[in-house]
């Protein structure tokens, strides 16, 4: 078995198909009508599975976003491996938390419902706090709907974390999926992953 120290890249988040990303991806595939014809931003896309799902169900535009360039490359490769066209897909390495305009401009092209999807992005409560503020701004300015796939990591479940956020929101459970055995074995401590809609 190769050890974590042997990994040549720093924190290769894109190298894993995280439980939250799996739930988000499954949810999109199961809700073709919700996402078909819509503009979707995949925030922190990682391996890009949710972006691929959004393209597959006919999203009119998909913005694949990740601050790690390897994630964008991995996503492009995964589109190809899955035989999915990238004609309606754009890639962005911007830190969107500081680029509200990028989000606004992307959504300005569409009169339909707009979505920001996040698979397994909530693993650090400090980062979560700034993420919630960003999502709220986007919801207020563009009317964005926010969907989150997560296996109940602490920033979304722990009372102390939830109470610490200055941005308040409602977390609506919309789906819960059992994780396959190999995923449970790979990601310790979880056996289901949920999809929430966040309303600010």
């Amino acid at each position, binding site marked *: *078995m190769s050890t*974590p120290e042997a*990994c040549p890249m720093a*924190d*290769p*988040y894109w*190298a*894993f198909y*995280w439980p939250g990303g799996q739930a988000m991806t499954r949810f999109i595939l199961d809700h073709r009508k919700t996402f078909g014809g819509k503009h979707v931003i995949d925030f922190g896309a990682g391996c890009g599975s949710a972006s691929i799902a959004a393209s597959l169900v006919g999203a009119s535009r998909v913005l694949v976003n990740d601050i790690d360039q390897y994630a964008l490359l991995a996503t492009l490769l995964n589109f190809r491996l899955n035989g999915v066209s990238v004609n309606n897909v754009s890639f962005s390495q911007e830190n969107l938390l500081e680029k509200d305009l990028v989000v606004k401009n992307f959504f300005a092209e569409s009169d339909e419902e707009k979505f920001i999807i996040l698979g*397994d992005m909530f*693993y*650090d*409560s*400090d*980062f979560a706090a700034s993420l919630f503020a960003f999502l709220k701004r986007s919801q207020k300015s563009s009317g964005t709907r926010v969907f989150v796939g997560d296996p109940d*990591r*602490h920033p979304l479940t*722990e009372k*102390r*974390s939830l109470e610490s956020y200055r941005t308040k929101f409602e977390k609506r459970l919309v789906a819960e999926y059992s994780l396959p055995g190999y995923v*449970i074995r*790979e*990601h*310790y*401590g*979880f*056996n289901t992953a949920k999809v929430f809609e966040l309303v600010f």
Partner: protein
Amino acid sequence: MRILVGVKRVVDYAVKVRVKPDKSGVVTEGVQHSMNPFDEIALEEAVKLKEKKLATEVVAFSLGGPKSAEILRTALAKGADKAVHVQVSEAEAAKVEPLHVAQALQKLLEKDKFDLVFVGKQAIDDDASQTAPLLAGLLDWPQALYASKVEEGGAGFLKVTREIDGGLDTVKVKLPAVLSADLRLNEPRYATLPNIMKAKKKPLQNIPIKDLGVEIKSQTSILEVSEPPQREAGGFVEDVPALVNKLKEKGFVKN
């Protein structure tokens, strides 16, 4: 069910320990340390209980010097949700005894509600085996020590199989309770890259021991630590008659 798991930083099991020249203890400087293997087993079982949805949260606890934080990070990478580090100085760390750990745990449990405290049956450095029973005594909670199997035991209970000299003892223990893990309970998992990556940001709370009002006052004093007696080299014999002769010569066999 919320589970608090005690994990101790000890000299790694694979290290050949050396006694200090003044016989006051063993050399710990510059020596590889890791999580006490029996605590790893307790942690593994707690994470399994969470995966089975019997537990809602697993919190790792360690009382020790600054480096105990590394052990807690490992515990988080192995599936604990949170960690609590009760901090003592490097000098105090060498003097910590099971009673101090039990007292610190008792104080923590007064502030934060847990249904189960799970520790290894013993630590491989001092082999004291006292933390779990001392804690159960201080709290007046039931205990199930040397667990080799932990199962659901009906509402508010666990069914625990214990390894004892005569065989296996199965007990139903009422929660809240104190458990200790025996070797055959499970095989602990490794901390893999995805778990290490997402564990980096899990909450690790630091509590100086004085905030708990526990004083590290020695209950025992070490008189001497010495190496086990050296075994003398043996010899080979050509055949069975030679062996018999040798045994007679040494007086092990009568003529």
